[in-house]
C-alpha cells in the first residue's frame, strides 16, 4: 500500500490536526474575545470530520484496503462507527459550553482547541492497530482531558478533579505501558495482527501478565470496577460541560479501543481474559448501582450510573462474538444519547442567580415548577433504568440477547437481576421530581443550544427511537463484522 493511499485513509484525522493547529494560532492571536467564534469553527470542523469518516461506515469498509501506514492504523467500519459517536459527542459538548463558562468569565479560547485535540486522540484510539499508535492516541486524549478537567481555574473542585485525574490517569498509563512492554517482549512485535499470531496456542505466564496489565490500564480508562474510584470525584469536580464530554466521547473511544485490543491481538486468548471481563462487568454493574444509592449530588450519581452502564456494555465483550460486539456498539450509541441528555438537563438546572443546581434535594417537585424539564429528565432516568418502551431498554436488550446467544446464561441472568438494583436510584430521581413537595430552587433560563440538544436526545430515547433499530443494527453489524474480519 502506497503512502498516498494511507494518507487518504486518515483524512478525518488530518483535518482535525490541521484545523486544531490553525485554531490554536487563532486563539493565540485573537485571545479570549474570539472564544465563541472559535467554538463555532471547532464544531464545524468536528462535523466535517464526521462527514469524512462516515463513508467508511456506509460502504462497510473492511479488509486490507483499510490499513494505513504498514499496519499501524485501520480506518474500517468499526473505527468509523466509533468516530461518528466521538465527533458527535465532542461537538455537542462544545455547543453547551459557552453558556456555562461565560458566567464565570472563563470561556477561554483554548477550550475548543483542547476538545479538538482530544477528539483527534480518540479518533486514533478507535483506529489503532499497533501498540504504539494506541499509546499515542490514548495519551493525546488524556493530556487534553487533564487540562479540561481543571479548566475552571478559580474553582477548587475543578483543580482537584484535574489533579486527581492526572495522577491516577498517569498511573493507569504506566500500568498499560508495562503490560504493552510485556506483550511486546513475548510477541516480538507491537503490531496487533502480529501479536495475535504470536500469542496463538499456549500462553506464557509473562504474556498473560501482559494481557492483564493492558486490560487493567484500559479498565481505568473506561472506569470499570475495580479501577473506577476516580470517576465520581472527577465527574463531580469537573465543570459540567467537561463532565458531559468525559461521560460520552472518551468512554466511546476507550471502549472501542478495549474491544479492538481484546478481540484483535488478544482474540486467540479469549478464554484467558473472558473470566476477567465477566468479573469486571458484574462488579461494575453491582458497585455502580449500590454506590449511586447514597449520592446526594446528581453529577456523582451520573458517574456511578456510567460505571453501571459500562458493566452492561462489557457483557457484550464477554460474548466474544460479532453479535456481542454489535450489541456493544448499539448500547454505546444509546448510552451516549442518554448521558448527553442527562448532563444537558443537569446544566439546565440553575437557580434564580443562574448558579448551577447539583444537589438532588434541590430538584424536589421539579415536575410542578418546570414540567417540561422534569419530563425530559424522567424520560432519561427511566431510559437509563432500561424500562421499556424507552429506548434505553433496547441497549440492554441487544446486549443480553448476545449473551444468551453466546450461551452465557448465568451471566445474563445475574446481570439483569442486578439491573433492578440500579433501577432503584433512577426511579428515586423520578420520585423526588414527581412525588415530593417542590423545593422551588430551579428558576434559571437556558439558551437554545441546551434546549435543542435536550429535546433531540429525548425524542431519540422516546419510543420513536425503536424506528431506528434496523438502521442502527445494520450499521453496528457492519462495524462488528469489520472488527472480526481484522481479528
Amino acid at each position, binding site marked *: 500500500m502506497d503512502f498516498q493511499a494511507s494518507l487518504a485513509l486518515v483524512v478525518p484525522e488530518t483535518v482535525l490536526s490541521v484545523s486544531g493547529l490553525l485554531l490554536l494560532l487563532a486563539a493565540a492571536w485573537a485571545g479570549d474575545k474570539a472564544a465563541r467564534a472559535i467554538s463555532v469553527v471547532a464544531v464545524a470542523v468536528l462535523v466535517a470530520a464526521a462527514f469524512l469518516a462516515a463513508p467508511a461506515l456506509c460502504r462497510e469498509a473492511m479488509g486490507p484496503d483499510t490499513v494505513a501506514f504498514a499496519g499501524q492504523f485501520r480506518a474500517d467500519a468499526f473505527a468509523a462507527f466509533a468516530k461518528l459517536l466521538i465527533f458527535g459527542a465532542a461537538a455537542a459538548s462544545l455547543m453547551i459550553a459557552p453558556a456555562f463558562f461565560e458566567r464565570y468569565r472563563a470561556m477561554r479560547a483554548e477550550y475548543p482547541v483542547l476538545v479538538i485535540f482530544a477528539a483527534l486522540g480518540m479518533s486514533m484510539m478507535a483506529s489503532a492497530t499497533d501498540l504504539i499508535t494506541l499509546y499515542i492516541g490514548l495519551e493525546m486524549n488524556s493530556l487534553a482531558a487533564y487540562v479540561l478537567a481543571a479548566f475552571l481555574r478559580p474553582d477548587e473542585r475543578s483543580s482537584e478533579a484535574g489533579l486527581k485525574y492526572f495522577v491516577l490517569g498517569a498511573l493507569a498509563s504506566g500500568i498499560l505501558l508495562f503490560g504493552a512492554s510485556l506483550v511486546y517482549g513475548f510477541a516480538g512485535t507491537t503490531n496487533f495482527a502480529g501479536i495475535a499470531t504470536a500469542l496463538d496456542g499456549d500462553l506464557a505466564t509473562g504474556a498473560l501478565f501482559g494481557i492483564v496489565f493492558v486490560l487493567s490500564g484500559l479498565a481505568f480508562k473506561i472506569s470499570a470496577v475495580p479501577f473506577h474510584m476516580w470517576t465520581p470525584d472527577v465527574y463531580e469536580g469537573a465543570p459540567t460541560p467537561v463532565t458531559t464530554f468525559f461521560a460520552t466521547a472518551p468512554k466511546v473511544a476507550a471502549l472501542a479501543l478495549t474491544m479492538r485490543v481484546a478481540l484483535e491481538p488478544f482474540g486467540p486468548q479469549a478464554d484467558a481474559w473472558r473470566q476477567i471481563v465477566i468479573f469486571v462487568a458484574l462488579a461494575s454493574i453491582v458497585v455502580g448501582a449500590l454506590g449511586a444509592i447514597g449520592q446526594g449530588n446528581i453529577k456523582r450519581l451520573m458517574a456511578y450510573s456510567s460505571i453501571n452502564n459500562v458493566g452492561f456494555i462489557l457483557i457484550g465483550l464477554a460474548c466474544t462474538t460479532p453479535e456481542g460486539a454489535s450489541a456493544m456498539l448499539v448500547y454505546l450509541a444509546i448510552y451516549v444519547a442518554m448521558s448527553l441528555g442527562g448532563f444537558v438537563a443537569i446544566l439546565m438546572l440553575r437557580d434564580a442567580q443562574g448558579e448551577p443546581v447539583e444537589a438532588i434535594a434541590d430538584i424536589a417537585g421539579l*415536575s*410542578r415548577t418546570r414540567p417540561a424539564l422534569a419530563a425530559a429528565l424522567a424520560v432519561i432516568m*427511566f431510559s437509563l433504568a432500561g*424500562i*421499556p*418502551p424507552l429506548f434505553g*431498554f433496547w441497549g440492554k*436488550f*441487544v446486549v*443480553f*440477547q448476545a449473551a*444468551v*446467544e453466546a450461551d452465557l*446464561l448465568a451471566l*445474563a*441472568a445475574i446481570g*439483569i*437481576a442486578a*439491573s*433492578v438494583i440500579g*433501577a*432503584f436510584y433512577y*426511579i428515586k430521581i*423520578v*420520585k423526588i421530581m*414527581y*412525588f415530593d413537595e417542590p423545593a422551588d430552587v430551579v428558576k434559571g433560563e437556558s439558551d437554545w443550544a441546551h434546549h435543542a440538544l435536550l429535546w433531540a436526545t429525548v425524542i431519540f430515547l422516546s419510543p420513536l427511537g*425503536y*424506528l431506528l*433499530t*434496523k438502521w*442502527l*443494527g*445494520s450499521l453496528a453489524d457492519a462495524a462488528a463484522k469489520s472488527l472480526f474480519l481484522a481479528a
Partner: protein
Amino acid sequence: MMNGFPILSLMLLVPLVGAIACLFVEARAARMIALAATLIDLVLGIVLWANYDIGGAQWQFTERVELFAGFSYALGIDGIALMLIVLSVFLMPICIGASWDGITKRVGEYMAAFLLMEVLMIGVFAAQDLFLFYIFFEAGLIPMYLIIGIWGGDNRIYASYKFFLYTLLGSVLMLIAMLWMANEAGSTDIPTLMAYDFPVQAQTWLWLAFLASFAVKMPMWPVHTWLPDAHVQAPTAGSVILAGVLLKMGGYGFIRFSLPMFPEASAQFAWLIFALSAVAVVYTSLVALVQHDMKKLIAYSSVAHMGIVTVGAFAFNVQGIEGSMIMMLSHGLVSGALFLSVGVIYDRLHTREIDRYGGLSINMPKYSLFFMLFTMASIGLPGTSGFVAEFLSLAGIYQVSTWITLVCTTGIILGAAYMLYLYRRVAFGEQKNADAAAMPDLSAREWAMMVPLALAVLWMGVYPESFLAPMRKDIAALDARIARAKPEGDSRLALGKPKAPTHGETHKTEAAGGEAH
C-alpha cells in the same frame, strides 16, 4: 369481518393521542378528552366483539409490519384476548368517571397516565410478538408508578417503590427466558412459539422464569405483598384498573405462555401452583377477615380470587381453563365495582376505616343495594358472575385433585364470611357517626358507573355463554395442546348413565353448587 382495517392499531392510537393531548390542556378539558378517548375505545371494542368471527380463524384482526430489528409490530387476537380487551375498554370510562371529582391536582397528567395505561393494556393482550408483548407488559410500570406515587395516599412512596421493584425483578428474568426461546425457536412470533416443542429439560427453567414474572403480577402468595400496599395507596380509579385489568396480565400470561409453550413443565410444577394457590386462598381470606381498612380487605380478597384463577388454569382440562378465564373477567368487574363502591363513600368521608361507617342502608339505600349485589357476586352467589367462575374452576380442579378442591372451597366459605362481615359493618347496624349518617346517596355520575357494572355482572351470571362462546375454540385448542402432559387426577370420575339426561343435568348442577357454598 373487517378486512384489513387496522382496528387494533386504532384502539392503541386513540388513547395515545388523547394522552399526549391531555398533557397540554387544563383540568376540565383533560377530563373531557380522557372520557371521549375511552368512550371511543369502548365503541371500537364493541365493534371488535361484534365483528369477531366465533369459530373462525384462531387469530383474527391480525396486523404485521416489520418496523424493528429483532422483533416485529404484530397484533392479533383470539377469543381469550378479545374478552380481556373488552374488559379493559369497558372499565376505562368508568375509571375516568371515578376520578372526575376525586382528582383535583395535576388532572392533565393523571388522565394522560390513565390513557397510557389503556394503550399498554390493550397492547399486552393484542401483541403477537414475544418482545412486543414484553415491551407493553413492562411499560405499564411507568404510568402505574406515577399514579400510585403522585395521587396515592399517605404511604404512597413506599407502595410505589415496592410495586415497581417487585414487578421489575420478576419481569427481567422472564426477558432472559424469552431471549433464549427466540434464539432456540428462531422466531419471536407468539403463535409459532405456542406450537413449538421446547426441550423438556429447558422447559423447567423457562417455566420458572415466566413464573417469576407472572406470579408477581398475578399476584400469588407469597409475592403478593405489594398488592395491598399499592391498592390502599392508589386512588380509586387506580385500584379499579389495578384489580380489574393489571392483575389479569399474570393470568393471561399463564394461559398464553406457560401452558401452551411449556406443557411438560406446567404439569411438572402443577403441584407448586396448587400448593401456592391453596395457601393463598385460605391464608389471604383469613387475613382479609381481620382487616379494618376496606380497600385492604378487598385487595386481600383479590389475592384469594386469583388463587382460584391459577388452580383453574393448571387443571389441564377445558372446564378449569374456562373457569379461570371467567374468573378473571368476573373478578375484573366485581373487584372493580367493589373498589368503586369504597371510592363512593371514601369521597364523602375521606376514610377507609370500616368502623367509621355503619347503617348506611338507612341514609344510602340505593348505594347499599349496589354494594350488596357486588358483595354477593364476590362471594359467588348463583345468578352473579362469581358463581359461574367458581363453579367452573372448581369442577375443573376436582378432576385433578380432590384435596385442593376441598381447600379452595373452604376459601370460598371464608370469602362469604369476610365479605358479609364487611357488608354488615358498613351497611347494617346502628349509625354510630353523625357524619357518616349524613352522607347523601348516589349522584347521577355514580349511577352511571354502577349500573353498567351491575348489568354486566348479572349478564355474566345468568348467560355466561356470551362470554364463553368466543373463547371456547381457543380453550379447546389449548386443552388439546397440553393434553399430552396431563397429570393423572385422583378423583377417578366415571361418566354415569342417567336414565333421563335432562333431569340428571340439572341435578348435577345443583349438587355441585351446594358443595361450593
